[in-house]
């Protein structure tokens, strides 16, 4: 078994309130995973459970093959060999940058500690900053110090709690990508929790969608976006709308304004729970599934538009009163209320049973 972190039907919560219920997941050695979910979904509680701050009410957590948490038994955080990056960075304000990074290296002698502090500061791009005070650094620099501090003792697992949420949006994505690369280079295993899908997609090779304490889907970022397992994931990730359609026996889906060909010709879309071979369905249309085409026989009325620079995101009213989103290159500038030709350009079907509530 190469799982560095394994959660086996983990439940967490307080006396009468379950926050997380029966969670199963595992992260391979060297993997970077992310728990993504809206606020209050229980993702931070999971992280605190893994760190050892919260006792389990059910299940078991294994770290590098050893059991660290089960009901009634919680190995204290200070003995887990984990590193953690906090949302507010939690740098010790009374210690210089170097002493912060060296805090977890107290078993080493001073010379070796100084050498490692210098090494890790260099890794995160802050070489020579060890005499600075935390309050003298910018938010991005503080974040790097927090990362160096967590990495320096070379822990079995790095946990990150919304690590980029205090940064400017510009900095957020670039730093997330950079940190992801750095962790991969060092071969570190990491689990990140965030509510920001940009961060999740920029860093993680596996993403778990958590909602109401339950794991909705555990997949690669590509599959989470293109193959959402249920309507919650479809709505939470990316943009898009649900429209009514009719599943045909061949696997194609007929919409009032076009047809989406079957992903696997002759087979119904692969969903949980499985759809009946034919009948009414709800179909997810992403903004890039609806393209602007003046030659198309189908037209839609422009309801709203949001200028995004290279593109314009149009909210369209389709035939039959259905509304959909369409991402159009921004030189196609149409007035609100005008009619434009559209065409369905989806290359695969994401359909759900019509009875499901949105």
């Amino acid at each position, binding site marked *: 078994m190469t799982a560095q972190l394994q959660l086996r039907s983990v439940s967490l919560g307080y006396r009468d309130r379950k926050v997380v219920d029966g969670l199963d997941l595992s992260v391979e050695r060297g993997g970077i995973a992310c728990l993504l979910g809206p606020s209050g979904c229980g993702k931070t509680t999971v992280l605190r459970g893994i*760190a*050892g*701050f919260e*006792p389990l009410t059910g299940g078991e957590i294994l770290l*590098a093959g*050893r059991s660290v948490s089960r*009901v*009634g*038994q*919680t*190995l*204290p*955080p*200070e*003995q*887990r*060999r*984990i*590193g*953690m990056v*906090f*949302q*507010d960075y*939690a*740098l*010790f*304000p*009374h210690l210089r940058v170097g002493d912060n990074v060296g*805090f*977890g*290296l*107290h*078993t*080493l002698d001073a010379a070796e500690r100084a050498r490692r502090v210098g090494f890790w500061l260099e890794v995160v791009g802050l070489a020579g900053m060890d005499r600075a005070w935390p309050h003298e650094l910018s938010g991005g620099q503080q974040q790097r110090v927090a990362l160096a*501090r*967590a990495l320096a*003792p*070379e*822990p*079995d697992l790095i*946990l990150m709690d919304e690590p980029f949420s205090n940064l400017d949006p510009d900095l957020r994505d670039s730093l997330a990508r950079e940190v992801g690369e750095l962790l991969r280079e*060092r*071969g*570190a*295993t990491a689990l990140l929790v965030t509510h920001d899908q940009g961060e999740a997609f920029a860093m993680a090779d596996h993403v778990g969608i958590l909602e109401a304490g339950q794991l909705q889907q555990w997949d690669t970022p590509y599959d989470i976006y293109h193959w959402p397992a249920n309507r919650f994931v479809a709505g939470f990730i990316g943009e898009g709308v649900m429209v009514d359609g009719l599943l045909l026996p061949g696997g194609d889906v007929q919409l009032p304004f076009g047809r989406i060909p079957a992903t696997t010709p002759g087979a119904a879309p692969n969903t949980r729970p499985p759809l009946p071979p034919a009948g009414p369905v709800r179909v997810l249309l992403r903004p890039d599934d609806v393209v602007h085409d003046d030659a198309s026989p189908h037209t839609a009325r422009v309801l709203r538009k949001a200028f995004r620079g290279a593109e314009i995101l149009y909210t369209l009213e389709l035939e039959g009163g259905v509304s959909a989103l369409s991402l159009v290159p921004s030189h196609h500038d149409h007035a609100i209320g005008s009619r434009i030709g559209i065409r369905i350009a989806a290359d695969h079907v994401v359909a759900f049973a019509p009875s499901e509530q949105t």
Partner: protein
Amino acid sequence: MPAIADNGAGGQTRLAFALAGAGSGERQRRLWRALALLIAALIVAPLAVLLTRIGDADPQLLEHLLGHVLPTVSINTLLLVCLVVAGTGTLGTGLAWLISRYRFPGRDLFSWALLLPMALPAYVLAFVAVGLLDFAGPLQTALRALLGPELRLPPVRSVGGAALVLSLSLYPYVYLLCRNAFDSQGQRAMEAARSLGLSRRRAFWRVALPMSRPWLAAGLLLVVMETLADFGTVSVFNVDTFTTAIYKSWFGLFSLGTAAQLASLLLLIGFGIALTEHRLRDRAGYWSPGRGRSGTGEDLPDTSGWLATGICLGVLMLAFLIPLAQLLLWAAADASGIDASSLRAAGRTLLLGMAAAALVVSTALLLAYARREAPGRVTDIATRLATLGYAIPGAVLAVGVFVALSLTDRALPALAGADWRIGGTLVAILFAYQARFLAVGFGPVEAGMARIGRSLDDAARVLGAGSRRRLLQVHLPLLAPSLFSAAALVLVDVMKEMPITLMTRPFGWDTLAVRIFELTSEGQWEAAALPSLALVATGLLPLVLLNRQAQSRA
């Protein structure tokens, strides 16, 4: 990743599991709650004992008490409180308004200098005032020489005189809180009011003052507490209030029962004030004034600008500069100077202050930890009870501690089999100081604790720091400044303290405050000047701290 040190050895892991076994967090929380309740019980015990003595007066003295003492004492106390509230309210809000809204010559200097009277204990101001204004004092002598020997001014030693001195001494509480309120309101509320057609004066009465009501009320409540607790000033002025009546029944009539009864009545008033204060503080949140840039103030035209300067200077002269100058003159004229006994008194004052500061700060630290580790109703109530003492006059606490300790002293030989006594020892006086000043020390300690975020603890833990290392390397260095300010505040308060020291000190333990009391009761103003100056010098310390705090916040 390579491991630095493998601490995952099976035995150690099992041991750690055992230590952190199920419910250990809950057990720890229970211990903290028990500790907080124990501290609260220790502090409330003397007050509780006192309450059982309400109906417990000497039958022979009861008639005297009901017929003569109580009516006079009640009327004097009530009158004094009303006059001081009016005086400090006017001075405090008026000066705060001038300072926070206008620019005039010397404004920045007066902004902090108007706090200086806090360094001058009220009883010192009192004896200086009596010395200056009494029939034989320099002012009346000069006036008589000028206007003829029949001239009679209203007597200085009266409720009015005491109220004037207390107002000059206590107005900084109101001034400080109101200035904070006016500053944090910013200009915006006033600008809104004036854009709606209110004149500047009407805007003050209809917007600024009502918005500051919670702060004003909090300041006035502090003033009421201090006035009720005052012992030294009213002694100098020969005005009988509850506190002096307690002292006289005990040390004059040797009736501890009567003293306890009077103290229990005053205690009930203290409870009422503490409750009011707590409810005010809870409500203050709803009143928080809108944010906005705090104004740089408006320039006053020449004449009114100099008038404002004159008002501020006048108050400062009366409340601080003139008394200080007079003290210096007297100290210079005092032939006896510094002798061995005054040095001993100074040393003992410092020793008592430092012992009390150490005790109070450690208790406050335990209490603050209990609240952090086991937050909830139990620790909230325990904290509220433990910090009740600031609302209870020292004279009341002194009697309560004495009565409670005489009970334990009677029980001790039976329990311990030895003839130990706590009453009349240093333990007794420190116990009383702790009850009175725990709130003073608890405030800064808790504020410091609140600044140590939970995530710092968590970060230290995942980096492998156990509870000892977290305490020594994370908490204590971060708390050090708060602990220092708490200790300084308690030290200064204890050094100035008069009634508790007077009534519960071990035999022969005269402090500076006690010497001032004894010298002034014999009218020896000159001899009392030097110990007073020592107290003024130490009293400047909290002002420096306050100033530094305000600057670091800005």
